[in-house]
C-alpha cells in the first residue's frame, strides 16, 4: 500500500512540470432557457479537436491555448452547438448559453455529457442518469424513484421486492455514501424502504461510482451516489407538479434577480392513509401512515467570480397505530456552497454541510407510556480546489472535516412504571486531505491518480469498558472502565487511500480501462437484517470496532459503435473488505452501551462481471444490463467460521430498460428484471419447545439455500395532452407494475399452519381440523396499475 501511495505522490509531483507560455480561456457553460449549469459540456478547438476541455459540476471550464486565432466549438448533447472565433493574445473569459435542440424531435436524448464519454473518459464503474431518464422508467405506484432506477444498472442490486436499499458490488447497504447536494443522507428511504426520499422534481442529475472512485470522495467503501438538486430557472418563473396515485407534488421556481439569482421550492406528500380507510378492520382504519419531502434551493451570482448556493432538504415519515403507538423519522440536510474563481485556472468550492437523521416513537398505553428518541448529526466542511494546470493536467485537491454526534437512545417516561434513561452520546471527528490529477499522457493514454489520507478520532466524553486480556468481550470478563473527558481522544484511526484509473484508447471507438481504489469507512449500521429499518443504529469505529477497509480492482473494455449511438461496456471486478462485522443473535443493539459485546468481525470478498449495452439516442433508447457475481463473508463464530454467501448475493442479475417515442404526444416505456433468488437459510429439521414447533438450523451453514428466482415486467405510457397555450404543458402517465402479476417471493416463513390455510382465521374459516408444519411464501405486490397527472406552467 505504501509503495502505491508513493508512486501516486511521485506522479503528482512529476505532472507539475514547466509548460510553454499559454493563455487561458475560461468561463461557464449554461442552458439558455433556465440558466442551469451544464455539467460535462465540451469545448474544443474546432481545427484540432484533440485540444479540449469538459465543464465541471458547476459548468466551469478552463482551456489553455498558445496565442493565435481559433474557432472554439462548445457542445452538449441535446443542445445546439455554438462556435465562436477568438483572437487570443491574452487570457480571456467566455461564457456560453446553449439552446436546447427543439428542431429534431426524433433525437431523444437520455444522456448528458459527451457522446463518446463511454470510451474516452478515464472514468469506469460509473453511471450517470439524468432525471428525465429516471422519470421515464415505470415505477411502483407511479412514484418515480431515483434509487430504484439505479438498481437497474449493472452491479447494483436491491434487497427485495419494492425496497430501496442498494447493494453495490457485494457491499452492504450502509457502505454507500448517499449525497444530496454533497450533504450525507443517512437513511434514504420512506415507508420502511418502499420509496426513496428523493423528490424527482427537485433533482437534476444522479451519478453513481461503483469503483474507480475519485480521491475527492471517501467515507464509505462500496459506492458514492452523488445526487444534485436543480438550481431553479433563473430566467423565467415556472410552476410544475403532479397528482399521483399515492402522492402529490408541487414545485415553484424562478428568478429572484434575473440571470443572477434563482430559487426553487419543491414539496411532495403521500396520502397512503387513504388506502387504510378502505379497510374493513377498525384496527387498520384508525392508523396514520404518510410521508412528506421538502426541498429548497437558492443560488446567487455574487460576481463574475463568486457564486453562492444554499440548499436544503427536510422529510419525515409518520406512522401511527391508533392512539397507542406512534413512530416518526426523517432526514434533514443543509448545504451552503460558495464557488470562487481565483483566476482562470484555479477554482474553489467551499461547502458547509449539515445532516440530521432522527427517529422517535411514543407508546401511550395504560400503565406503560414513554417517548423514545434517537438521532445523529453531521457537521461537515469541505474545501475542493480545481487547478487547470494545462490542457493535459487537471489537478484537484482539498480537505474535509466532519464532526459526528450520535445520540443512540433517550427514553423519557410518561408513566410511573418506566424510568427515564438514555445511552450516552458518542462523538467523533473525521478528517481527510486529498490530491489527484487527471493527466493525458498522450492521445491514447490517460491516467487519473490520486491519494487521500483519511483519519477518524472517536472523542470523549466517553467511557470504555476494559476486558480481560484474551477473553471474550462479555460483561462477565469486564475488569474496569476507562473514562475520557470531553474532547479527549478515545481511539484514533487513519490511513492512506490510493486511487488510480487508467484509460488506454485502442482507437476512437474502443478503449480499455483499469482502476484500483482503497476506501476506508468509519461508521456502520448495526444490523444483521438485509434491509434497513429507521431504527437501525449507526455506530462509529471505537476502541473495539475497527474501521472497514475496502480494496477494489476493476478492468473493463468499452466500445461505441454506429456514431456513438450504441455503447457497450464489459467490466470485471474483485473487491476485498476487511473488518466486516456481524451482530450476535438476540443481542440488544438499540439499548446496548457496550456494543462491542454484540459483534464479531471478519472479512468479505466479492467478484463479478458486468455487461452493459446502451442506446442513448434515437426514438428508441434504453439499455440491457447483466451482472454475474458472487459475494462471500467469513466471520468468526458465524456458520462455524466457514465462508458463507451474503443474503443479497445474486448469481445472475439482469435488466432490460426501454423507452420508445411513438410520436410527439405518446411515449411508451417498459422494463424487465431478472435476478437469482436471494441466498437464505432454510431449516433442516424441527422440534417442539414451549409448545411451539420450531425450525432447526444447521449452525455450520448460513445462506446455503435460495429463494425462488425473481422476475417482473413493468410498463408505462406517457401521453402529452393538448394545451391551448405553449406556456402550459400537461401529461398523463399510466403505468403497470408487475404486468404479468408474477408472485415473487418476498419472504418464506417456516411455521405451523391450521387447515393448510396460511391466512387461517378461526372465526372466518371454521374449526381447526389440522395443524401442520409448512413453508409459507409471501408475495408483496401483484399487478399494480397507477395513473399520474403532471403539469408545468412557464411564465413570460
Amino acid at each position, binding site marked *: 500500500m505504501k509503495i502505491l501511495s508513493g508512486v501516486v505522490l511521485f506522479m503528482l509531483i512529476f505532472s507539475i512540470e514547466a509548460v510553454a507560455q499559454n493563455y487561458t480561456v475560461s468561463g461557464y457553460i449554461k442552458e439558455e432557457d433556465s440558466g442551469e449549469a451544464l455539467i460535462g459540456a465540451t469545448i474544443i478547438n474546432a481545427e484540432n479537436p484533440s485540444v479540449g476541455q469538459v465543464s465541471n459540476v458547476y459548468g466551469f471550464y478552463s482551456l489553455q491555448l498558445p496565442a493565435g486565432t481559433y474557432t472554439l466549438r462548445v457542445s452538449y448533447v441535446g443542445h445546439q452547438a455554438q462556435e465562436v472565433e477568438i483572437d487570443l493574445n491574452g487570457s480571456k473569459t467566455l461564457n456560453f448559453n446553449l439552446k436546447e435542440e427543439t428542431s429534431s424531435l426524433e433525437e431523444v436524448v437520455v444522456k448528458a455529457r459527451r457522446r463518446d464519454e463511454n470510451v474516452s473518459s478515464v472514468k469506469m464503474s460509473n453511471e450517470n442518469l439524468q432525471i428525465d431518464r429516471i422519470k421515464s422508467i415505470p415505477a411502483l405506484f407511479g412514484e418515480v424513484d431515483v434509487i430504484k432506477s439505479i438498481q437497474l444498472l449493472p452491479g447494483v442490486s436491491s434487497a427485495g421486492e419494492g425496497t430501496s436499499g442498494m447493494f453495490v458490488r457485494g457491499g452492504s447497504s450502509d457502505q454507500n455514501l448517499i449525497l444530496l447536494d454533497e450533504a450525507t443522507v443517512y437513511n434514504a428511504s420512506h415507508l*420502511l424502504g418502499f420509496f426513496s426520499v428523493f423528490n424527482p422534481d427537485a433533482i437534476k442529475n444522479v451519478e453513481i461510482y461503483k469503483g474507480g472512485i475519485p480521491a475527492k470522495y471517501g467515507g464509505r467503501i462500496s459506492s458514492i451516489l452523488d445526487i444534485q438538486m436543480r438550481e431553479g430557472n433563473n430566467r423565467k418563473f415556472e410552476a410544475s407538479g403532479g397528482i399521483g396515485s399515492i402522492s402529490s407534488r408541487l414545485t415553484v421556481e424562478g428568478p429572484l434577480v434575473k440571470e443572477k439569482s434563482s430559487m426553487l421550492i419543491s414539496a411532495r406528500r403521500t396520502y397512503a392513509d387513504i388506502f387504510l380507510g378502505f379497510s374493513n378492520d377498525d384496527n387498520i382504519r384508525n392508523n396514520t401512515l404518510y410521508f412528506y419531502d421538502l426541498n429548497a434551493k437558492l443560488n446567487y451570482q455574487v460576481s463574475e467570480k463568486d457564486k453562492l448556493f444554499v440548499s436544503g432538504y427536510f422529510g419525515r415519515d409518520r406512522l401511527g397505530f391508533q392512539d397507542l403507538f406512534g413512530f416518526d423519522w426523517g432526514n434533514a440536510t443543509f448545504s451552503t456552497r460558495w464557488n470562487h474563481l481565483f483566476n482562470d485556472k484555479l477554482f474553489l468550492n467551499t461547502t458547509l454541510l449539515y445532516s440530521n437523521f432522527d427517529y422517535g416513537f411514543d407508546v401511550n398505553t395504560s*400503565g406503560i407510556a414513554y417517548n423514545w428518541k434517537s438521532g445523529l448529526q453531521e457537521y461537515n466542511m469541505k474545501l475542493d480546489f480545481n487547478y487547470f494546470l494545462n490542457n493535459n493536467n487537471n489537478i484537484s485537491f482539498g480537505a474535509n472535516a466532519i464532526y459526528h454526534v450520535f445520540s443512540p437512545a433517550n427514553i423519557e417516561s410518561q408513566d*410511573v412504571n418506566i*424510568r427515564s434513561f438514555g445511552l450516552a452520546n458518542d462523538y467523533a471527528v473525521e478528517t481527510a486531505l486529498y490530491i489527484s490529477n487527471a493527466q493525458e499522457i498522450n492521445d491514447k493514454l490517460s491516467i487519473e491518480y490520486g491519494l487521500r489520507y483519511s483519519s477518524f478520532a472517536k472523542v470523549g466524553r466517553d467511557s470504555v469498558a476494559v476486558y480481560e486480556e484474551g477473553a471474550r468481550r462479555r460483561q462477565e470478563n469486564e475488569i474496569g472502565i476507562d473514562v475520557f473527558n470531553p474532547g479527549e481522544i478515545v481511539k484514533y484511526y487513519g490511513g492512506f487511500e490510493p486511487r488510480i484509473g487508467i484509460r488506454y484508447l485502442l482507437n476512437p471507438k474502443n478503449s480499455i480501462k483499469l482502476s484500483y481504489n482503497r476506501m476506508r469507512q468509519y461508521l456502520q449500521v448495526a444490523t444483521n437484517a438485509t434491509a434497513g429499518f429507521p431504527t437501525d443504529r449507526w455506530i462509529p469505529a471505537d476502541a473495539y470496532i475497527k474501521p472497514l477497509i475496502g480494496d477494489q480492482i476493476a478492468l473493463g473494455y468499452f466500445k461505441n459503435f454506429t456514431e456513438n449511438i450504441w455503447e457497450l461496456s464489459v467490466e470485471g471486478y474483485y473487491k476485498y473488505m476487511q473488518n466486516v462485522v456481524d451482530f450476535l443473535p438476540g443481542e440488544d443493539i438499540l439499548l446496548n452501551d457496550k456494543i462491542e459485546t454484540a459483534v464479531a468481525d471478519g472479512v468479505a470478498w466479492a467478484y463479478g462481471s458486468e455487461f452493459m449495452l446502451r442506446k442513448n439516442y434515437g426514438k428508441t433508447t434504453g439499455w440491457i444490463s447483466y451482472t454475474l457475481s458472487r459475494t462471500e463473508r467469513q466471520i468468526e463464530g458465524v456458520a462455524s467460521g466457514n465462508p458463507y454467501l451474503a*443474503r443479497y448475493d445474486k448469481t445472475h442479475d439482469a435488466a432490460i430498460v426501454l423507452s420508445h417515442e411513438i410520436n410527439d404526444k405518446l411515449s411508451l416505456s417498459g422494463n424487465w428484471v431478472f435476478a437469482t433468488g436471494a441466498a437464505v437459510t432454510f431449516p433442516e*429439521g*424441527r422440534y417442539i419447545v414451549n409448545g411451539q414447533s420450531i425450525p432447526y438450523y444447521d449452525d455450520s451453514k448460513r445462506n446455503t439455500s435460495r429463494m425462488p428466482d425473481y422476475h417482473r415486467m413493468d410498463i408505462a405510457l406517457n401521453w402529452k395532452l393538448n394545451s391551448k397555450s405553449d406556456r402550459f404543458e400537461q401529461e398523463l402517465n399510466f403505468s403497470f407494475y408487475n404486468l404479468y402479476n408474477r408472485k415473487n417471493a418476498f419472504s418464506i416463513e417456516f411455521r405451523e399452519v391450521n387447515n393448510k390455510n396460511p391466512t387461517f382465521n378461526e372465526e372466518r374459516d371454521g374449526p381447526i381440523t389440522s395443524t401442520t408444519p409448512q413453508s409459507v411464501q409471501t408475495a408483496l405486490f401483484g399487478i399494480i396499475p397507477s395513473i399520474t397527472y403532471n403539469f408545468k406552467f412557464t411564465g413570460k
Partner: protein
Amino acid sequence: MKSIKPFILFSIIISLFACQELIDLDLAQSDPRVVIEGKITNQPGPHKIKVSRTINYYDTTGTPPLSNASVQLMDESRNLIEQFTYFAEDSTFRSSESWAAEIGETYIFNIEADGDMYEAKGQILENATLDSLYYLSSETLEALGQNVLGDDGYYLFANGAINGQGIQYYRLQIKLNDTLKNSRGDIANSVLSSELFGREFIGLPIPGTFQEKDTIELSLSSINEDIYQYYLEFINLMFNDGGVFSPPPVNPTTNIVNLTTPDKFALGFIQFSAEIRETIIIPEEEE
C-alpha cells in the same frame, strides 16, 4: 422492551398488498439432535424434564421421546439430589412430588442422551413481590382517559416491587379458565426485563383482554439472564419470516452444554425459577 419494533405497522402495509401461499421446498435433512426442555421451581413437584430428538421439517409424526436417557439433578457441589424417573404418559422425566428448589441455591442437571453427556446450571433467583392484582373494564379505562390495545372487556393490572440487585428477568404466564395462553404472541409477551423499570410497579398492565366469569391464573417466575436471552432468541426465531427485515435465522443459544461433543449442543433449555401464582376471577355483571 427489545421486542418493540415497527413490526405491527409493517404488517399493516404488507397485509394491504401481500398474498400468502404454501410452497413445497426440497429441504436438506441433517442428523437428528437432542432436544431438552424443562424447569425446576421453588413450588412443590413433580418438576419435569422432556428429552427428545429433532425430526425432519415436514414430518408430522411428533418428536420421538428419548425414554432411555438419564436425568440427574445435583446441587452446586455436584452432590446428587435426585435421579428423575421416566413417565410414559407424557414422555417426561420427573422429580419426586415433595422436592422443591430453594431460593438462592444453584442447581446442576446432568443428562445422558444418545451417548452424549449434557449439563445445565442455574440459580433460583428471588422473585418480584406481587402486592395486588386488579382489573378494570375498558369503559372505566376509557372514562379515565387511559388507552388500551385490544377489544372491549376487562384488563388486568399489577402492583408490586422488584427485588434483587441490578437488572432482573421474569417470565409471566397466564392460564385462562384452565388453559395456558401459549400462542406465539402470548410467548412474545411473556418475558420481561426490569431494565426500563424502577424498583416498584404500579398499575403494570398484564397482557390480554378478559371477559366476565373468566378465571385467570397468573404465574410469575424469576429467570436467569441466560434464559431471558434464550427466550429473546426463541421469540426472534418464532417471528423470523425469512425476509429482508429479519436477521438470518439461528438456533437460540441454550444454557445446556454438551460435555462429550461441545459443537453438538442440545436444543431447548432448562429453566431455574422462583415462582408465584395468583388467581383472580372476574364476576358476572361487574360495573
